[in-house]
């Protein structure tokens, strides 16, 4: 008898628990979509109106989906966003649609926190993968599946100090220029102008071996991230080029101040920086003592005038209770042409849809926002975007790159003899990757 009562009590408790959990689940408002966004630019440049695009998207979305409410928490700074998102994830309160920080993408994708969007994209008749620049789209891929859609991208360009070049009687390089031209100009402009025995004019600032590798068509890692190709002859070419470039500065480290003072001819510049500093008011606040413009990066002997690409991703929470709606919202942000076009006016990034970038409307918008560009127009940008190289994404990439960077810096600076260093490096990196 006593056992009976106990058993029934247990069952009743169980039932209560089940009902309670269902109630707790349903307490969430039926049709509320939460969006995770941060304040400030994704590209590390000043940004005035962070929520302009998302506000517009919400307006359109709520119109088209009556009864659905879209909310976001404002005021989260970009540097706090990753932690904020992790906390929300851990607490089970992650937004339905959210920006995935590039460094966190692999983690969340591998954890299954991000919804696999491949089937959504394949089945949606109003959606086409081919509209995107491949590098931008690939950024949201993990293990052959798409877990995030690109919102905006930013390629790397080459900042050219037109005033300096004019002073030295050098023509602004064309968009198809090569390392050789780049090196020659650097050598020519590096000099001691005031005659105090210290160099005070330089060729380039902030150009690193990774950019050289990208523009020489190097593929550093196998796709699965289990092997590296540092011993490739193209890496060797890049190294030799970097050593020459390093030697051209004659041992003097170029600083940001040198560049700001207009004493450096070139500097790799992201498109976002270009977009920020070119128009008013930044045009007169920064780099105002000289004329400047951007061109493509110089091509290596085995490569092309390509660029690496930074991409901002958004994904859908795998545990979202409104996945279909979330996909619609994500599509509005990442795919809707009018929203994509807003990237050009309201943000410093570039739309990720090729047709949007190349449209006439965009060209006009772009020209209106950035006066005085001769070399740079959207067609060029589109070319860069098309050929852009995506940053590999596998576990241990950052660590492997850090290892390689330390070693290669030593090679470039001449601390380590060059002869067999790359073979050795490849072995070390492979050993690390295969751990």
């Amino acid at each position, binding site marked *: 008898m006593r056992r009976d009562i106990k058993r029934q009590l247990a069952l009743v408790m169980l039932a209560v628990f089940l009902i309670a959990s269902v109630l707790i689940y349903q307490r969430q408002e039926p049709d509320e979509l939460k969006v995770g966004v941060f304040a400030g630019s994704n590209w590390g440049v000043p940004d005035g109106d962070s929520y302009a695009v998302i506000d517009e998207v919400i307006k359109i979305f709520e119109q088209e989906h009556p009864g659905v409410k879209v909310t976001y928490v404002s005021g989260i700074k970009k540097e706090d966003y990753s932690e904020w998102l992790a906390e929300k994830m*851990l607490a089970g309160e992650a937004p339905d649609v959210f920006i995935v920080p590039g460094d966190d993408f692999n983690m969340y994708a591998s954890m299954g926190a991000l919804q696999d969007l491949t089937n959504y994209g394949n089945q949606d008749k109003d959606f086409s993968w081919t509209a995107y620049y491949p590098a931008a789209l690939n950024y949201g891929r993990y293990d052959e599946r798409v877990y995030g859609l690109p919102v905006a991208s930013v390629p790397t360009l080459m900042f050219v100090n037109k005033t300096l070049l004019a002073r030295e009687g050098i023509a602004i390089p064309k968009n198809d220029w090569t390392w050789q031209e780049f090196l020659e100009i650097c050598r020519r402009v590096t000099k001691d102008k005031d005659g105090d025995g210290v160099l005070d004019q330089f060729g380039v600032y902030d150009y690193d071996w990774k950019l050289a590798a990208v523009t020489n068509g190097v593929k550093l890692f196998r796709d699965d991230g289990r092997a590296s190709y540092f011993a490739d002859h193209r890496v060797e070419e890049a190294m030799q080029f970097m050593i020459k470039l390093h030697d051209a500065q004659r041992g003097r480290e170029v600083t940001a101040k040198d560049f700001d003072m207009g004493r450096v001819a070139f500097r790799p510049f992201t498109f976002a920086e270009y977009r920020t500093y070119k128009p008013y008011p930044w045009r007169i606040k920064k780099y105002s003592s000289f004329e400047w413009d951007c061109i493509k990066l110089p091509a290596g002997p085995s490569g092309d005038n390509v660029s690496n690409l930074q991409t901002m991703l958004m994904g859908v929470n795998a545990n979202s209770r409104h996945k279909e709606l979330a996909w619609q919202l994500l599509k509005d942000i990442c795919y809707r042409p009018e929203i994509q076009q807003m990237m050009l006016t309201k943000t410093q990034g570039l739309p990720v849809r090729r047709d949007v970038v190349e449209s006439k409307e965009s060209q006009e918008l772009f020209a209106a926002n950035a006066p005085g560009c001769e070399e740079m127009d959207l067609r060029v940008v589109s070319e860069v975007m098309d050929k852009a190289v995506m940053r590999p994404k596998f576990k241990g990439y950052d660590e492997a790159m850090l290892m390689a960077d330390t070693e290669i810096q030593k090679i470039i600076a001449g601390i380590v003899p060059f002869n067999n260093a790359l073979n050795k490096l490849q072995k070390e990196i492979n050993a690390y990757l295969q751990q």
Partner: protein
Amino acid sequence: MKVDFEVMREQARIASLYRLLGIYNGLVVFLMAGFMSITQEKIIKSMSARSFLETLPIVPMPAGECFALSMGSFLLLVGLGHLYRRDTLTDTMRYFVFLAEISACLLVMRSLNLAYDGVVLLVVADLMHRYQGKNQSWLLLGAMFGLYFIANYNMAVFQGHVAPFDAYVSYYKSSVQAILVAVKNGFVSVNIILFVLYLVLLVQSKHQEKERIASLNKQLGDANKRLRAYAIEAERMAETRERNRLAREIHDTLGHALTGIAAGLDACIILVDAAPEAAKKQLAKIRETARRGIVDVRRSVKKLRPDDLEKLPLRHAIARMVAEFAESSNMKIKVIALGWPDNLREDEEEVIYRVVQEGITNANQHGHATEAIVTIGTEPGRNYIIIADNGIGCSEVDPGFGLRHMKERLGLLHGRLRYWSDNGFTLEATIPAGNRQEDDK
């Protein structure tokens, strides 16, 4: 009654240990789930969620949900365990309940991020409880293997899909970490100890039950044997009674005939002078009566003679009778033949047979002896039978029907009967022999 009480106490002990095992596991699940949930909350509060997530292969469940799921699935497990133990379930139902129990067990383990697998033992304990019969033990073995296989497979498969316990532990200072790991291992060890204790008790109780059944079986066998012996004895007594009746009848017949002859002879004495013809007639009648008497006597004697003696030589007849009696009475009886008398008459054989029979019957019935030695031997001029037993004997022998009867029989053959009590009861019968041999010659 006493045995039943002990069994009940044993059962109560097992039940309370099972309950203890359940409560203990509940406590551990509660503490583990609580620890993980609290740690998760603390991690969020201390803004180290990003670095915590980096160490995990999945996004763990929210703290509250994890706790509720752990406790809920554990309650489910316990509830199913109780259901499983109920006797009213059909076998099919029981298997279903058991399957559900395994699922609940896996759910508990899963919700605890596989940090604690002790609940498997709870399920095994349930399984052990039900173990009965021959096939069941194989089934049990199979099921236990299966359960452990599932648990380990689960471990292997889910290992990459749960937040490891260590990740939670590593949030704390290293000094605290050591304590936490030690406590966790302690939980597992205590659980195993409890489980083993439970198993030992269970096996012990099963063993005792078996022993109890065996002892009952033996008692039953003994009772059966005694009953059989009693039946044989009763039969024998009926036979004896019948013989006595027959003896009386013979006596009556013989007596009757003799009386008739005596009376007839009296008449003849008177008639022989007065009417010799009538006397002759009378004598003829008397002869008839005597002849009839002889026939009657012969018939009666023949009836009385034991079957065995009819068919077998005395030696074998005695051996068989002794063996039969020994078997039916459970006495140990040894027959020592120091020499078999030759050329015994039928009546002598019968007396010897009867003496042995009566002697061992008495030893069993009155002396309550368990052993008896029957010695048969010959001496010049006489044969003797000594029957010695290890029974209680008696200080004052009060000769009953048996002894008297024996004496009478022996007396007919000029034999003698002596008996005394020392270590048990000893009976000695002697029958004269020898002269008749010469007579026969």
